[in-house]
């Protein structure tokens, strides 16, 4: 009797189904250990609580709220996004993965998992943040679009850097050291557009920022996809 393993699709299956299979495998292994999940969510929650408690309720200018939002989101995301390839090195499954799937599939599978993790974090963090810091979003569509485009850019750059870190075999602060300079051009418009979302009196369409964020997301995703095989294969 042959037993078909659901997480290893046969050679005939399409590209997208292979990516999804890798994504599903990552979600399953993540729920076994919950290492990245607990790190990211607890980091975000603890930081948010500390910030909110120290500030008291309300009265903070929109600019500072926007800065705090991105500082909390960025650093909690970085604490989890670093794991994606280190995990494979730790469990000594990197070679198996190299044999089982092509470079494109691995990159987009990991990318998808990281995006899922980040969007999950945002769904958890945004309502809590708005409630605890007592702010209201006046341009919801702009806020959602900016956060989503920003997340795609953030995840695209950091997925490649996470693979660099894993191949280099270094842990700790180097992931943040490598990520922040590359993410700096992303953060400047993100903080600005988020601030405008908290201020109804400012007249702005936010289109310029959205275009910039889309350009960053497109360039970093293409760059990550093209450069990844050079990191991943000797």
């Amino acid at each position: 009797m042959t037993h078909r393993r659901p997480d290893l699709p046969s050679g005939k299956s399409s590209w997208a189904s292979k990516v999804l299979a890798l994504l599903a495998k990552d979600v399953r292994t993540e729920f076994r250990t919950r290492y990245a999940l607990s790190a990211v969510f607890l980091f975000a929650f603890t930081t948010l609580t500390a910030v909110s408690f120290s500030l008291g309720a309300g009265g903070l200018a929109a600019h500072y709220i926007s800065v705090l939002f991105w500082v909390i989101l960025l650093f909690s995301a970085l604490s989890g996004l670093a794991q994606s390839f280190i995990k494979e090195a730790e469990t000594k499954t990197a070679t198996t993965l190299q044999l089982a799937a092509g470079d494109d599939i691995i990159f987009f599978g990991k990318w998808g998992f990281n995006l899922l993790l980040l969007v999950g974090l945002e769904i958890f963090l945004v309502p809590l943040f708005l409630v605890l810091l007592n702010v209201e979003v006046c341009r919801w569509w702009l806020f959602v679009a900016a956060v989503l485009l920003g997340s795609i850019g953030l995840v695209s750059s950091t997925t490649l850097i996470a693979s660099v870190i894993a191949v280099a075999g270094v842990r700790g602060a180097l992931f943040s050291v490598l990520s922040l300079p590359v993410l700096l051009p992303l953060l400047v418009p993100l903080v600005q557009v988020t601030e405008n979302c908290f201020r109804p009196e400012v007249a702005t369409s936010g289109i310029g920022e959205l275009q910039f964020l889309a350009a960053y997301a497109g360039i970093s995703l293409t760059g990550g996809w093209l450069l990844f095989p050079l990191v991943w294969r000797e």
Partner: protein
Amino acid sequence: MWWKYLTGLLLAAVIVAIFVLPPPQTQIGGVSRIFFFHVPAALIGFIAFVLSAIYGAVYLKGRDLSTDRKAVAAAEIGLMFTIIATISGAIFARITWGMYWNWDPRQTSILAVLLIYGAYFALRQAVPSHATRARLSAVYLLLAGILAPLLFFVLPRLYPSLHPNDSLVSGGGEFAMTLPVGLTFGASVLSFLLLYFWLHQLAVRAGRIKEKLEM
């Protein structure tokens, strides 16, 4: 060999010319002369960044470790010139805008370049194997390199910048690109470029000797 003597003579001449040839700017006076150091230094910092990324791409294609040595040398000198540009720019900003640092888009982008160089060297120090170190740092510099146009060309247009692009040299006729100004500026850029190539040669040689000693 001869061009190294030329570099020395030209640099000496440029330093004298900067203080003698162009007339002081009418509004800020002699301080405007910092322009002749600041702009070429920023230019070399940028060129070295691009060259280092190109050397990195060539390394990834051919896997020749001598190309990696050239990439590091370019990055080392690029870092030095970027620091010079940042400091001279901050001094100029203090005099014209009233403060050393105010997060003008131009200052943000040059700081990002400094951070990228810093991250590049931090990554190199963390990886013991020479081939892996060369490969990973080349990839990192290429990632930073393809995102850099957003930083240099798009961000300053998204947010208004106080940085004088051509207002200083042509705006209002106070500091117009007249023949003495143009000549001094051109000679300054040329001498900085020659200095870059000289330093690059020396850094590559020093890198080769260091590797031999470590072996």
